[in-house]
């Protein structure tokens, strides 16, 4: 009796993983097709290269083969992490990703954590005080924050805190002297460089979570079990915890859905703050018509999104026993 739901559970996990894999594969394939649809062969040879040399050149790269053969080969390479060469960086795309991806993940994970914590705190506070002055002020605030595009916010932050006040660095991940500082100063330096991009990237997420948490908390706050908790003699804090614990469920779903929107935000924030991460690199790749890198960015984005929704699933199971069965 107990083992049966468990087996069902594990087969569901497998199904979910397969489904995610399918999504990534399909996105990658779409990217491949897009790349082939693009006007002009990305590997157009120079006008003055003789025909035989050109043929040899494209044979070397397998471009003389039929598209399905190329596709299979491309997919096989992809499976082992070979995204091809970056025409802009003149390096394997994988090497570039190795450099830039951790930087973006750092920014994104911090921004996500900060958005979640701040947003939930604000939203939960509001949710139990719907209609009060504090609530409407915060609601207006988060509506504003929700409406400010990251790139403009970034520009404002640079102008204000880096240029006018000179409190924080305007761009980059570390100072010029970074590598020659003692450990403690290096940590401070990293943090100082994180403040502005993180703020720019966090504000939108925070307001999003706050809005979401507010409404879910408001709903939970009107549920009968809140009354029960009070009747049990719980303190207001205890009662709020009861409500928050259930209000968490829809918010946790949001958590996974934030990944694509954060990555989108990172494109702009990284560009403004010269943060050499995935987003900034994607823009460079676009300006440079670096197809392999652009396609890799799409695939990485899709992997991130899919992992995000998997994570959301896991988290939702963790916080909501009703979905666990």
């Amino acid at each position, binding site marked *: 009796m107990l083992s049966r739901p468990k087996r069902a559970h594990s087969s569901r996990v497998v199904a979910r993983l397969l489904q995610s894999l399918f999504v990534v594969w399909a996105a990658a394939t779409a990217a491949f097709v897009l790349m082939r649809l693009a006007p002009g062969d990305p590997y157009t040879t120079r006008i003055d290269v003789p025909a035989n040399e050109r043929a040899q050149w494209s044979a070397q790269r397998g471009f003389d083969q039929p598209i399905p053969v190329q596709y299979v080969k491309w997919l096989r390479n992809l499976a082992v992490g070979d995204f091809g060469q970056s025409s802009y960086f003149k390096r394997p795309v994988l090497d570039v990703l190795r450099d830039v991806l951790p930087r973006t993940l750092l920014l994104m994970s911090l921004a996500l954590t900060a958005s979640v914590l701040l947003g939930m705190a604000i939203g939960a506070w509001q949710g139990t005080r719907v209609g009060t002055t504090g609530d409407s002020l915060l609601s207006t605030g988060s509506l504003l924050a929700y409406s400010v595009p*990251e790139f*403009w916010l970034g520009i404002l932050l640079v102008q204000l805190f880096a240029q006018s006040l000179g409190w924080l660095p305007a761009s980059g991940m570390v100072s010029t002297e970074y590598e020659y500082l003692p450990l403690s100063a290096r940590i401070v330096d990293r943090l100082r460089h994180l403040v502005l991009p993180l703020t720019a990237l966090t504000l939108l997420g925070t307001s999003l979570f706050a809005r979401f948490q507010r409404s879910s908390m408001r709903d939970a706050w009107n549920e009968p079990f809140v009354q029960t908790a009070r009747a049990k003699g719980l303190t207001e804090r205890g009662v709020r915890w009861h409500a928050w614990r259930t209000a968490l469920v829809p918010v946790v779903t949001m958590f996974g859905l934030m990944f694509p929107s954060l990555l989108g935000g990172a494109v702009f924030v990284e560009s403004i703050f010269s943060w050499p991460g995935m987003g900034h690199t994607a823009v460079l790749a676009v300006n440079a018509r670096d197809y392999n890198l652009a396609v890799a960015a799409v695939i990485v984005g899709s992997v991130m999104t899919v992992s995000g929704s998997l994570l959301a699933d896991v988290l939702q199971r963790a916080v909501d026993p009703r979905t666990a069965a």
Partner: protein
Amino acid sequence: MSRRLLWPLAALVVFLIIAAGAPWLSPAAPNAIPTEGIIASSPPSAAHPFGTDPSGRDVLSRVLHGTRISLGIALLSVAIATTVGTLFGALSGWIGGRLDAILMRLLDVALSVPRVLVLLCVSALWGALPLPGLVLLLGLTGWYDVARLVRGDVFALKDREFVVAARAMGTGETRVLWRHVLPHIWPTLVVTATLGIAHTIALEAGLSFLGLGVQPPQASWGSILSDGSAMVSSRWWITLFPGIAIVSAVMTCNALGDALRETLAPGQVAA
């Protein structure tokens, strides 16, 4: 009408008036580079309340005209997105079964790539797009949410008594869908579309800021702002005023969407 609905609606009307009346409201031609005197970016003054951009063009006039382009792009592309999304969602929800499963997987795939990356990638492959291309691109990447919501609504409505009754009376499938089901999902559509407009304004501004959206000499708020981005150090006004325009337009649409959501309570059609 509730006050929550009134304010954003009034603001939206103001924006539409500005968009429609830009040629009459603007003190100067938006793309006119002065033919006399020095071409330079000057700070706000009586003659140019928002200052001038690096090519000596009046930023106020450009922002007013930019309203047209920014809002126009957003409205048109959201119209496309809503149409495509409704068709896709209605089809999926109405027919259900295998088709629904396939369409939903497709939607998963589409949703898996961050929209900004798709837009970047297409720009990478095709280069700067003309305005209709941009509208189409934004529209064709913006319908996923609509499709999902519409599908959910249609799915829920499909077995409701009045629908079953209509079918029982021998009404054709298309007609039932068109006359009996779709009218019930318009609150969902109105709310999603309004929020979609807000999002599209911001997104188009971002793309134009990166130089991938609206191409010169046409100017949307994002590209006006972009013209000043290389000189934020000394020419703050070129980035400030279009930025304020973007934020207020986006905020207006978001507030309107929120208010509409509460007024129309679209979630309840499915209940």
